[in-house]
């Protein structure tokens, strides 16, 4: 099995599918990693920390969406379900039973995985638009249920009880945003590492095969339905982690916001903007859209008017019309052109 995989990778390398990264790219990656680690000390304002935390969380959420849509080709419009489940799991367990949010985070991942099975098994068989609309409706239904469910606070939601005794145990930090930053960074890094490995694994190759050529993949013996459900499970668990962290970060759970279709759609827009099916596309999309919305909130603060969504909408239309493969592919093309000058 392992040697099999090594052989596949070797073959792929020979075909230039996975070229060994050039030295400058490795240098860039190292610099980027160091910059991310040092960020809170270079920029010390609370606003820059907040923006960066949101970028990292959205990068993780967009990547989670990317696992389903970018790799298995199913467009989910209900990913906020898993985000909400993550936030509610950690908060309900902590607020009602005093369980540490760390355990709640794991429970949330488990529940999200189960929810992904429950939703995915019947709906992932549906073709294209039918699946998209089904997830949109399920997402909206879950929101309605949580808004009516008294045990979890119904429409008014839940508060994370404040406990200042042991910040790392209770996963809440009241004096600084820096610990949240590193938590978000760790979660995002873990998610991206997972997807990086996934893309090069047998499972990942199969997913991409059934996305591009479902009939050919099926005739090669790939169990399409099972693979799609598994991708959906992984994606749900990733989204749930972001939800738990977000809940601990804002300390207020509002079902109106957590389960909103807006969240499902924003992760989609980020991924498509950056480049769906790529590793770094979702992060790029998050890095563009989050600051846009944070700055717009400052400029128009309090008026209830936001310009960010108008810009989002126009930006995404332009990308879909001129660059359906995303902004990242534009950069890649430039790099490739520079690396290999025209003969």
């Amino acid at each position, binding site marked *: 099995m392992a040697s099999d995989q090594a052989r596949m990778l070797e073959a792929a390398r020979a075909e230039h599918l996975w070229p060994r990264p050039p030295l400058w790219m490795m240098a860039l990656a190292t610099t980027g990693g160091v910059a991310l680690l040092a960020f809170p000390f270079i920029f010390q304002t609370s606003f820059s920390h907040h923006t960066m935390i949101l970028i990292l969380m959205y990068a993780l959420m967009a990547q989670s969406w990317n696992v389903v849509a970018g790799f298995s080709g199913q467009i989910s419009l209900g990913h906020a379900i898993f985000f909400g489940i993550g936030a509610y799991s950690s908060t309900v367990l902590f607020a009602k039973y005093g369980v540490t949010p760390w355990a709640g985070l794991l429970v949330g991942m488990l529940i999200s995985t189960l929810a992904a099975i429950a939703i995915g098994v019947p709906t992932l068989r549906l073709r294209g638009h039918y699946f998209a609309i089904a997830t949109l409706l399920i997402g909206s239904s879950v929101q309605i249920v949580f808004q009516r469910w008294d045990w979890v606070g119904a429409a008014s939601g839940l508060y994370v009880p404040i406990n200042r005794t042991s910040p790392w145990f209770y996963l809440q930090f009241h004096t600084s945003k820096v610990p949240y930053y590193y938590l978000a960074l760790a979660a995002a890094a873990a998610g991206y590492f997972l997807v990086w490995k996934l893309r090069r694994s047998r499972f990942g190759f199969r997913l991409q095969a059934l996305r591009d050529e479902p009939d050919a993949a099926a005739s090669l013996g790939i169990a399409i339905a099972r693979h799609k459900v598994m991708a959906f499970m992984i994606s749900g668990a990733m989204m749930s982690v972001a939800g738990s962290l977000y809940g601990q970060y804002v300390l207020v759970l509002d079902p109106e916001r957590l389960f909103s279709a807006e969240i499902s759609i924003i992760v989609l827009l980020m991924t498509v903007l950056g480049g769906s099916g790529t590793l770094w596309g979702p992060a790029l999309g998050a890095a563009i859209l989050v600051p846009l919305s944070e700055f717009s909130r400052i400029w128009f603060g309090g008026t209830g008017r936001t310009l960010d969504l108008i810009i989002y909408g126009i930006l*995404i239309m332009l990308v879909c019309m001129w660059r359906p493969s995303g902004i990242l592919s534009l950069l890649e093309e430039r790099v490739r052109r520079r690396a290999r000058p025209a003969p």
Partner: protein
Amino acid sequence: MHVLVNRLTTWGRARAMSRDLIIQAIVSGLLMGLIYAQVAVGLSLIFGLMEIVNFAHGEFLMLAMFTAFWLWALAGLDPLLSLPLVAAMLAVAGMLVHYGLIARLLKAPMLAQVCGTFGLAIALRAGAQFLWTPDFRTISNPWIAGRVQIGAIFIGQPQLVAGAICLLSFVVLWLFVTRTETGLGLQATAQDRQAAEVLGIATERMSALGWAIGLACVGVAGTMLSTFFYIFPDVGVSFALLAFVTVALGGFGSILGSLVAGLLIGLVESLGGLLLDPSYKTLIVFALYLGVVIVRPNGLFGRF
């Protein structure tokens, strides 16, 4: 003894009342269903022509409602008078959307098509919020107001007129699509684009026409809805969800299917709200969608 009689009469009265309530729910459900069908038929037409789901459909409904509102507020036009105007404006908007956005998305992957219309939806909704604030507005003294009483049930006159106009526009659309040469061209394009092109039908122009008609239908629905419903930037969202359900039930691309499915959904929603908790009525409709789509993936009246 008289306790029993007493109880029996109250039981009888309750039964009579609940019978009236059910009839009431059926009538108002059907009237609302006509609006749902009117919103959905445009979506269905567009999908039938080019396999694109217009995720901005609800936002065009919102735009139609606001157009009717501003024509009333600024020019003093009653929605009944502004109806043709709003429909024409929405038709022009449909042309613009087709040539400006959709024509460029036709060859793109499905994900880009979904995102393209989603982007349009987000920009339109945020734009409306930016220009007109999230406030709820109403058209306060339309020509048609009040309600009529038939037996024990009450029907709001605006709803009645709205239902009648939606039904009328359905008939017109049906006659247009089945009885005119252009309509047959539309049908041919929906059935087989390449073959239609070989036969000399300008399929590109048919698509643009489909968008114009589709959004004109939304214009009619929005104008009529504005006479009895709140007008605000997010108003399209719930109607769009119901329109997706309607189109999926009726089968993408089927005009008659939209009508039947719209009526069915109006009925299920209003009866479900009466018999179960009203707050769960949308859940029942969504469950209906999931049930039908999983059992019959091409809708109740799907072509294959």
